[in-house]
């Protein structure tokens, strides 16, 4: 050994005169990194309680619990994640999966207690020191575990679609549907919103598992017209879809359609295994629309013998006569109706109650009555010139086209209104070879029509004139109609839910068209009800008052569909039909 080997170790003492490495106060001086994953934070307002965090947690650390002050609404389950820090391993999968981005992690990491029971809290609700910490881990902008983009639905191009009545939407292929189904987080928020409370997550899972038979059974549990609803449903479910908070909601409607599209209708009976024992009781249904058909299905599967009285020459009601073929091909509607017929439901067509058969006869001959006659009496605009030739109602046009009559609308039309009927009428007019202009009192975002409808109408080059208050219709010298309106501005009124249009004085415009189609809504037609029943059944603002079993104030009479519910769409009518069937069953079995 050299002398150097003995001396060099003493070099270590040089260190003694340098500044020590030690952090004096590690607790204060060493906070977590800006993206350190510490204890959770949750934005209570943003969170919708979908429970994706609970499902993804590998350690079963998350419970969903009700929290004071959080109400259950359509878009919010009212539950909030409660995290067990005796389980959590701070992997942040819950943050990455969060459908709203409300769940975050602070960079606080110190929590010490002598009681092991306290290490659970609801982030956002409990007052913790890290509740409002800025730094911490949150979802990365460009990275999410969710699939936010909807699988594109193959559609006809607007150029092609406006030329014919061929169905615009082509439907998903198997790959597309399974891919789309995989986006679902199975939170189940949609079930409460669906008027029929369909088992949406379950049938989407069945699609994912490629078990379409099971999926169809799930559909028929709550909805006997899936082919119809798969096309024209107002899909309230998609509005509340948790994926929709940050991205595009799941195409629940198209997935439903996919199930029915994939299964040959001849196999329905084998798959659904609808078996029932007739119980000898008879129920009459007025109106073969979705409400009536739905009630008929559930009644007949409960063993009742059901007769439907329909005034038109084909069943389907507003779905057949109010929805144009490019949205709702008639063969698909027939598929739904035929299955119900197959089960033994008798549909008597061309039989208008009050004219061909008396309401009192039905009342006396059947054990129970259900009517779901729908809204088929178009509202009047109540302006001058409304009765001029060339002024049609939207329903009239759609009805004519269904029946194969080509209405005389010329080369240009003005459609008044902003609902689905107005859209349908405008787009139908396009297909009949006319230029359509849509005129609406309020702004575009106020339109009651589905956004998809509005979007497609735009794509198909329907002209939109908004904030226009109709004044009158005049006949011009060259045989055309002149539609005159007053431009309006939107004024928010105190206490009103939405701003209302107020005419701007003097700002009057006009448009020359060949025809004017008014589609500003419809009312119910109760002319089939004899006065003695009409007086017994209670109404409110033109709608029948029913209880939760769809029972009217006359115990034996049940009602549902557009005439009773506020949403006035097919799925609500179907739900009413189902409820009425259950109500009738309860009512008749109690006796």
């Amino acid at each position, binding site marked *: 050994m050299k002398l150097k080997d003995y001396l060099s170790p003493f070099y270590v003492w040089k260190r003694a005169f340098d500044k020590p490495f030690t952090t004096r106060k590690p607790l204060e001086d060493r906070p977590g990194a800006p993206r350190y994953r510490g204890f959770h934070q949750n934005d209570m307002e943003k969170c919708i309680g979908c429970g994706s965090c609970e499902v993804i947690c590998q*350690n079963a650390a998350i419970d969903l619990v009700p929290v004071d002050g959080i109400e259950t609404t359509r878009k919010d389950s009212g539950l909030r994640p409660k995290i067990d820090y005796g389980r959590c391993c701070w992997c942040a999968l819950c943050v990455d999966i969060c459908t709203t981005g409300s769940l975050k992690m602070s960079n606080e990491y110190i929590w*010490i207690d002598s009681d*092991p029971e306290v290490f659970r809290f609801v982030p956002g609700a409990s007052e913790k020191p890290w509740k409002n910490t800025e730094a911490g881990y949150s979802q990365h902008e460009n990275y999410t575990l969710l699939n936010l983009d909807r699988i594109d639905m193959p559609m006809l191009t607007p150029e092609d679609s406006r030329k014919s009545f061929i169905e615009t939407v082509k439907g998903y292929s198997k790959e597309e549907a399974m891919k789309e189904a995989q986006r679902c987080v199975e939170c189940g928020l949609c079930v409460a919103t669906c008027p029929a409370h369909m088992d949406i997550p379950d049938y989407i899972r069945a699609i994912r598992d490629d078990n379409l038979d099971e999926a169809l059974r799930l559909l028929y549990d709550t909805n006997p017209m899936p082919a119809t609803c798969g096309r024209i449903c107002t899909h309230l479910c998609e509005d509340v879809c948790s994926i929709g908070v940050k991205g595009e909601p799941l195409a629940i409607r198209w997935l439903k359609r996919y199930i029915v599209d994939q299964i040959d209708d001849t196999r329905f009976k084998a798959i659904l295994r609808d078996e029932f024992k007739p119980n000898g009781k008879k129920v009459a249904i007025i109106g073969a629309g979705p409400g009536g058909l739905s009630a008929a299905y559930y009644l007949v599967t409960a063993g009742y013998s059901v007769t439907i009285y329909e005034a038109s020459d084909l069943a389907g009601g507003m779905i057949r006569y109010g929805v144009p073929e490019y949205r709702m091909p008639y063969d698909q509607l027939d598929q739904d109706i035929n299955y119900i017929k197959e089960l033994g439901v008798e549909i008597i067509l061309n039989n208008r109650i009050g004219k061909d058969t008396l309401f009192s006869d039905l009342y006396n001959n059947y054990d129970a009555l259900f009517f779901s006659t729908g809204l088929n009496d178009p509202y009047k605009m109540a302006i001058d010139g409304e009765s001029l030739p060339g002024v049609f109602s939207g329903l009239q046009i759609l009805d004519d086209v269904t029946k194969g009559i080509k209405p005389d609308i010329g080369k240009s039309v003005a459609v008044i209104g902003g609902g689905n009927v107005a859209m349908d009428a405008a787009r139908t007019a396009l297909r009949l070879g006319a230029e359509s202009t849509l005129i609406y009192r309020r702004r575009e975002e106020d339109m009651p029509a589905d956004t998809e409808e509005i979007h497609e109408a735009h794509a198909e080059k329907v002209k939109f004139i908004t904030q226009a208050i109709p004044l009158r219709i005049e006949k011009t010298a060259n045989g055309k109609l002149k539609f005159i309106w007053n431009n309006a501005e939107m004024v928010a009124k105190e206490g009103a839910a939405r701003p209302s249009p107020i005419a701007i004085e003097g700002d009057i415009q006009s448009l020359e068209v060949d025809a004017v189609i008014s589609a500003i809504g419809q009312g119910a037609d109760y002319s089939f009800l004899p006065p003695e029943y009409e007086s017994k059944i209670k109404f409110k603002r033109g709608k029948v008052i029913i209880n939760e079993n769809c029972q009217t104030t006359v115990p034996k009479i049940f009602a549902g569909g557009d005439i009773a519910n506020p949403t006035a769409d097919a799925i609500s009518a179907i739900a009413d039909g189902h409820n009425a069937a259950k109500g009738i069953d309860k009512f008749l079995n109690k006796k």
Partner: protein
Amino acid sequence: MDNKEINNTKLANEGLSEQDRPLFCDARPQSYKPLGKYVEKFLNWARANSLWILGYGTGCGAIELRPLMTARFDMFRWGLAPRPTPRQAGVFVIGGYMSVKTLKRVIRSYEQMQGPKFVIGLGSCTINGGMYWDSYNTINRLDHYLPVDIYITGCMPRPEALIAGFNKLKEMIKAGETDGQNEYARNFDWYKANQKKIVKDWNMPDYNW
């Protein structure tokens, strides 16, 4: 044993052969009364400022104890020091999950420590199983087997959290709130029943001093 109130309730010491029994402890642990108020206060101050940690890494959390000894954290300046033998140590840091096999050794080590002794449950696993909650061989909650004075949640907690935990433990010792030793003696039968339910081959004395 220099303790007057010794209770000679004999233990069964099952699992030991007849000739081995006298070699091992056959008395139950005792409860101890604190000395006079001010004396105990002074002694508690000394206990709080000289915490010797049993350096037995029971789980992944043991790795969080190591940085404390480095120059960065320098735990010695708070009177903390690792101790290689349970006889001399006063704090048992349970570093996270404990398998059944480790639990057996931990029980033995804990009982060999001389009172007053303190237990720190480090990490989520000691509270409710943590990420090993559904494992066939790791326990879910530590407080069923040992009296735990404080828990530090985390998976794993950073060394800073461990420091905070020691600070809290010190405060509790100074306030005289930590009485794991007596709690263990009082609920001895309950702890033993829990331990024996898990540790299937109990081939050691019922109590290891």
